[in-house]
């Protein structure tokens, strides 16, 4: 089967023959895998080659494509960078893949401090444009190469969320092609389609709907083609790029920006410091990173990484509590001086010893090396993350770490490392992320899928909040436990907006589909 010829002709007339193809070569090249974010795991078994690839350039073209899909009952999936490969692959045959890379507008309203971006714009592009104007956004853990629009819908977490909150709360105006092909404009766009200034607009605020519950709708609720996002005032001295690949970094203007590393006596002191820094309302970022990131930073290649990392032990990892703090003198050099004074006072009180820090930024201001996560083992996935309280992150880190031992190998030996957590909103929330690494060619690779289920059950049993309800996890396992019955709500909303079920089916229940089809999951499916 393939796309009906008549439908293909209609699509071709919308974008022009240069921007559409059903050639198997092009369709195969647009199929993610075999490696990537999730695509080395079980869910890849339900991924399909698209039946057609199309590149719209305007919202109107997207609308016409979606309407055509509805007329001919053809499923479609939108992608901007396709970085989250497992989510960016069709799960049904003969779907149309809309690649949104041509939608690359990036206009900044300097005075009102927001940017209007198309779905093809990535973070480092936006950050540079913002910084040219004395503004900034936050580069998320997903990496500098992720789409700004997609990431704002999803979550958008970064150590710099400490002051700015997560990205999905910084959405302003939205231009959204619904699964039916109608265009919905949110915020001030609702009454003036050129005015992206205001997020709330008139009437009900539907930004919650676009974000979904967990984490985003992954293309199953139509296509956001344009969005305005908040920017923030930066300090005036632009960091200077330096070095040659792979050793590139931003040279920080040290009178305005500095990273600090502290070795804390124990984990309790890390938590206390996080709260105290938040209470003092200082800093621009506060984070406790997994220890193996230090080994990554020191190593020249993966072989060296393992030489360094395998010298660690449960004891050495437990004893090493590193807290990283970023201070920025946003308003003046004196602000940084003041904040440094407060920070050092806090650290003195808590026994934090200042360690050496580079006068540069390799990650977070403009660059985030998420792709580097694949360097050590060849495979990586983030099967657990959430935004809750600092104490929640600590407790969950201990449990995740203990549970992980049952799945190591195939997971990388982590010597009890308890994950990555960082403070948001001046200590009012914390991001917790439990990163896991594996060799995609490991004979026991299916155990990584079992690990995902074990984590979901851990969350349910311990009543932990999780941001991964319907991605990497079966909706019908987590749904009844959260909400309650949030799965029913999600599916009902989806049905209401997408009666033909064409927008990236079977998301949000794609993980369930994989679990039902995979032989190795049958044994553990008890819900």
């Amino acid at each position, binding site marked *: 089967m393939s796309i009906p010829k008549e439908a293909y002709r209609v699509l071709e007339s919308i974008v022009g023959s240069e921007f559409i193809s059903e050639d*198997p070569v092009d369709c*195969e090249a647009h199929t993610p895998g075999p490696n990537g974010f999730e695509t080395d795991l079980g869910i890849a078994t339900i991924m399909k080659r698209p039946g057609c690839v199309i590149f719209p350039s305007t919202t109107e073209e997207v609308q016409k494509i979606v309407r055509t899909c509805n007329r001919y009952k053809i499923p479609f999936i939108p992608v901007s960078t396709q970085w989250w490969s497992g989510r960016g692959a069709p799960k049904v045959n003969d779907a149309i893949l809309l*690649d949104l890379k041509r939608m690359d507008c*990036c206009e900044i309203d300097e005075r009102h401090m927001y940017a209007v971006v198309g779905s093809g714009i990535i973070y480092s592009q936006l950050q540079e444009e913002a910084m040219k104007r004395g503004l900034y956004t936050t580069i998320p853990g997903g990496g500098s190469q992720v789409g700004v629009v997609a990431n704002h819908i999803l979550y958008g977490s970064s150590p710099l969320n400490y002051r700015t909150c997560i990205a999905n709360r910084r959405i302003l105006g939205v231009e959204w092609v619904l699964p039916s092909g109608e265009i919905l404009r949110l915020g001030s766009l609702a009454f003036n389609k050129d005015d992206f200034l205001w997020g709330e607009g008139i009437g009900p605020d539907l930004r919650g709907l676009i974000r979904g519950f967990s984490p985003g709708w992954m293309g199953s609720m139509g296509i956001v083609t344009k969005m305005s996002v908040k920017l923030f005032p930066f300090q005036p001295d632009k960091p200077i790029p330096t070095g*040659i*690949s792979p050793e590139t970094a931003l040279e920080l203007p040290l009178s305005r920006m500095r990273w600090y590393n502290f070795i804390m006596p124990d984990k309790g002191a890390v938590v206390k410091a996080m709260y105290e820094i938040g209470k003092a309302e200082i800093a621009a970022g506060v984070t406790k990173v997994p220890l193996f990131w230090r080994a990554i930073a020191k190593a020249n290649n993966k072989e060296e990484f*393992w030489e360094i990392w395998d010298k660690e032990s449960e004891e050495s990892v437990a004893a090493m509590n590193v807290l990283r703090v970023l201070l920025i003198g946003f308003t003046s050099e004196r602000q940084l001086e003041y904040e440094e004074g407060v920070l050092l006072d806090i650290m003195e009180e808590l026994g934090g010893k200042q360690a050496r820090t580079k006068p540069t930024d390799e990650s977070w201001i403009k660059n985030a090396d998420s792709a580097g996560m694949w360097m050590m083992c060849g495979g990586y996935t983030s099967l657990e993350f959430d935004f809750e309280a600092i104490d929640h992150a600590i407790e969950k880190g201990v449990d995740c770490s203990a549970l992980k031992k049952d799945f190591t190998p195939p997971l990388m030996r982590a010597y009890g490392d308890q994950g990555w957590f960082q403070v948001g909103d001046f200590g009012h929330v914390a991001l917790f992320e439990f990163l896991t690494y594996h060799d995609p060619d490991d004979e026991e690779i299916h155990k990584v899928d079992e690990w995902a289920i074990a984590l979901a059950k851990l969350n349910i049993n311990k009543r932990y909040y999780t941001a991964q309800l319907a991605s990497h996890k079966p909706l019908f396992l987590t749904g009844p436990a959260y909400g309650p019955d949030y799965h029913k709500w999600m599916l009902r909303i989806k049905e209401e907006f997408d009666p033909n079920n064409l927008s990236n089916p079977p998301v949000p229940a794609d993980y369930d589909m994989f679990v039902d089809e995979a032989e190795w999951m049958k044994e553990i499916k008890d819900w």
Partner: protein
Amino acid sequence: MPEEYVKLDVTDIDNFRYDMRRCVRCKGCKWVDHIYMPGSKFSTRCPSEKRYLFDSFSAWGRLRLALGLMDGQVNYSQRLVEAIYKCQLCGACDAGCKRNLDLEISSSLEALRIKCVNDGYGPMPEQKALAEKIEKEHNVFGAPSKNRAKWIKENKPVDETDIIYFVGCYASYKMPEISRATASILNASGRGFKLMGPDEYCCGYPLYSTGQMDKAKEVAEHNIESIENSGARTVVTSCAECYKTLKVDYPKMLGKSTSDMGYQVIHLVEFVEEQLGEGNIQFKNKLDLRLTYHDSCNLARMSEPWVYWEGKRGHFGLTEPTMPRRRGTYGLYGQPRDILKSIPGADLVEMVRIRENAWCCGAGGGVKEAFPDFAKWSADERLLEAKDVGAQALVTTCPRCKENFTNTIKASGDNMSVYDISELIGEAIK
């Protein structure tokens, strides 16, 4: 986890299966290093992906297609062969990938072309025709090989020197301004130069880069023998393609390392930098010019010495012995810039995509021959960037870059000047 035995040998594509399977589509091969990201304009590094949009024209897509071809999920077709050959092999993807993942992208793409030729589907007809010219007259123009040294005027070769000037096809037949300037510089330094004359064959870049391995190897073996017979130990080139081919691809073809070749290959810019340092040449003439420097891929990110490796790859992809990585870090970036900055009156202004992030001129990898429109389009993109920084002239170190830029400027009726660096050095030392 079973270990596998692998070699950095492009004649067997299976050696790069791991690299193809480990691509995560982070698109480090597409974007300018994020630290250096210039904004929403000039933000990508791959001409092919930008021009043709489809993933089949990107490094990540080609790796996927190569795997599909090896595993029988994809068949040869006109579209596939075009996807394989509409690429300059400029190495931007390779340097970008090695920012994070250390995958052997360039070698994978070379291996794919070699497979394509061995399977009877490559190269493109125009590239085949060029190979015939090389076979017949040992140069890319099919010009009589006896005329190779006809460019010589006042600066003549000498017998008593350990330097051989490997002139290259373009400077020998089409751009004598480069060979004459280079000869004048070599003589001005007091070191002098020898020539291989008719024994100099095309370096073989057009053959190697289009996957015509057997023919490339024949040429390489001939040139290596001629260099050895000359008794010279230093080979100077004024062409970035020749430089990279002699320094990197010859040992690569022969299963050796650059350090095992018995001769040293240097580009004119390395020679001049050294001679300036030693005071053997001085820049006397003033050149009032606002110029920008274009990093030729083959002198820059592609030019690190080749280190042959074979060994085991095991769990987590760990190699034993540790595989050497060529990441483009040590390309010749500083020398040409230092030289240009030393010329009195020359005002060097940088484009936004430089060094390992530079945008290719568009001519390499057989593209100029098989897809001239694409070559022109790529050059246009680069010239836009040069204009954006207000440059009056663009300087390069490769005759092929010079030709592609010059033709593109001519076609668009623009007025930017293009120089090979040898011309400016030659003028400055007069």
